[in-house]
């Protein structure tokens, strides 16, 4: 089973593009766009909700420019 989630990553003002670049390198996360300021739209694909949760935690912990990670649409494949 795979979890697929739309995720909005909130950043500090003006840092969306820079953070999006960094996120693009992470496995399981595909960046789909940003608003040019502080929001990034991405799709997460992972084994389960735990992986999604862990990713959110890790992003918040590791990147000071990230202020929130919000799943939007979340569903399961399989």
């Amino acid at each position, binding site marked *: 089973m795979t979890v697929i989630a739309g995720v909005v990553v909130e950043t500090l003002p003006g840092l969306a593009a820079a953070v999006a670049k960094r996120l693009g390198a992470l496995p399981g996360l595909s960046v789909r766009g940003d608003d040019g300021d502080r929001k990034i739209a991405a799709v997460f694909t992972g084994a389960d909700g735990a992986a999604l949760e862990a990713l959110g935690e890790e992003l918040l912990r590791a990147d000071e420019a990230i202020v929130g990670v919000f799943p939007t649409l*979340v569903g399961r494949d399989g």
Partner: protein
Amino acid sequence: MTMNRRELMETAAAAAALAAIGKLELPAHAAAPVPAAGADKWVKSVCRYCGTGCGLFVGVKDGKVVAVKGDKDNHNKGFLCLKGFLLPEIMSAPDRLLHPLIRKNDKLVPATWEEAMSLVASKFKAAIEKGGPDAVGFYGSGQALTEETYCANKLFKAGIRTNNIDGNPRLCMASAVGGYVTTFGKDEPMGCYDDIDHADVMLLVGSNAAEAHPILFQRIVRRKEAAKGTKIVVLDPRKTPTARIADLHISFTAGTDLAILNAIAHVLVKEGMVDEEFVKAHAAFGEGADANKTWEDYKAFLEAWTPEKAEEISGAKAADIRTCARWFGEKGKASLTMWTMGLNQRTKGVWANNLCHNLHLITGKIGLPGSSPLSLTGQPNACGGVRDGGALSHLLPYGRLVVNEKHRAEMEKLWGVPEGTIQPKPGLATVDLFRAVEDGKVKCLYIMCTNPGQSMPNVGRYRKALRREGAFVVVSEAFHPTRTSELADVVLPAALWAEKEGVYGCTERRYQLLEQSVKPSGEARPDFEILCDLAARLGHGKLLPFKTASDVWAELLTVCKGTAYDFSGMTRDRLKESHGLLWPLPTAGHPGTKRRYVKGDDPLVPADHPQRILFYGRPDRKAVVWLRPHQPAAEVPDAEYPLIYTTGRVIEHWHTGTMTRNCKELRHANAEAVVEMHPDDAKVLGVKNGDLAKVASRRGAETFKVRVIDGSRKGMVFVHMHDDKRLCNLPTNDAVDPISKQPEFKVCAVKVTKA
């Protein structure tokens, strides 16, 4: 081009995320049933967790809940936080209780419903016969459905004839209720979530919305992004995730925010940011319990509350207090204040609530889009269920009071019971109720849909009380063991969330119907049914003649009619069709009320009222600005207990974790409570990250792993509140606010030692 299921899901997920950042309209297929979830049908419901009250659809396949998706037509616009998303997992959790249990030879063993219910009924009957009606009590929940809470209240107050019925909203929103009632004469906020979308300044006091109300926080962030220049001020001792987005974070010594709120009012008055005309037309002034003061008295009272004095008391910078006041008071800007447990769970909780209202009343920034005081509710139905049910020891439905003869007479007539049935003396509020179990005055306690064996302050004391020889404790609960069910004499398996039907009312007076999606698991039964069964066995079956929860709702519509909380136009059918309705809503065709007390919006304000607002809750038709000085917490640090202790949420878990610990994804995230402390305190104590530390108060002690973080305030330690193994409430203080009777969870004194 055809898409496979995986591609379709990815497209839908991307579309939802892009829509959320304003890049794309959510396409229809993204909002339609998610095929990957494999659901056969989708049933409209509401999230089981926080007071944000996100609307959602429950996906059902083969009679099981397999998925949820956010309701895009509801206030949450299709968003759910991770807790909400993982709701399906709680339904089939390994610790779902599937059959009744009764205690035999000090062990809980399976029993039939008949055995369990006849034991409960016989124990209650015997206790009432011997000790009178007040020998029994009920402890309910802001998570129960409105219909369930109403039935419980009717059975105990009109059937058994005891007012010993209280519930966990006493631990949660009682001070907010006390604040609304003392200021406006009626309970419940006048504002709504929509105000977030119009606010220029948002003042969050004692609220970590980023973790406690994530979808509302997302809306706050969206507003900040959409309207450049929107200011967010966070008043919180800790640098919480909410404080990370603040334009101004005012940290202060926990328990001193009354001084800061008065100092903000001081600046508003001194710098001419008040609205004299509004004050003249709409404000009364009071001290103590009476509205017996004047505007001049209030201004004289504020003289002493300078930002410098507040700095001395609280440690917050006077300059920051001035900045906050100037942003809040700027003419033409909309200001919204939001708060939650940091203010409510205090021995001066009602006063602190009054002071928030004061800021809006003296500036006239109230009842306008974006300008409102708006308390955020902790539980999904703490607002709705308790007020509608009247299920606190001093209350009757819809703000009626047990001490008021006229109110009692009204309810006796509505309930068809003889005059004099309802006792005129308030029953025991939560802490006193558990103390009465401790001293043997209350012999039988029925606990429904809540976990006081973990959530009470000074919990060690009350855990002992629940196991006291001679006490008989019934727990109706969907899970076992919990830290309460383990103490019970009888545990009744309750249907959970999607297994039953009823109404939840969230923060903004929004009522929503949870439709039944699946059958109850095992032998579980909805609490509504269990209460009707108990009523029949106690000889009060006529009081609860209902066949379905809809029957109860029909009665509630007659009981609310003509009150200031009138939603008698909110029929079951309308609830089924709608995506949430805000009351007042007194007629079938009425669309609901976004902003209360406001002409043209609130149907209870006459259309020809000469002013834009009418505070109809009080006889003088005014709201009261209260003169409330700062007073210290019931317990402050001293040489023996030198640190302040406070507790709160993390985003992954909810309350006592009974449900969220059942999601395997969440169980591994922040499930173990840690004690967060400032690096300087850690240094003095000789502890580092991962060490064990014992946190002890005068009442109790618990050991936690240490997390050293800058966000903690020096001199204060913070503990996560959800862990069932490491009980954060062993040290907390059970001293209560004299008005709301809400305990002071948020401030007490502890010593911390390396374990």
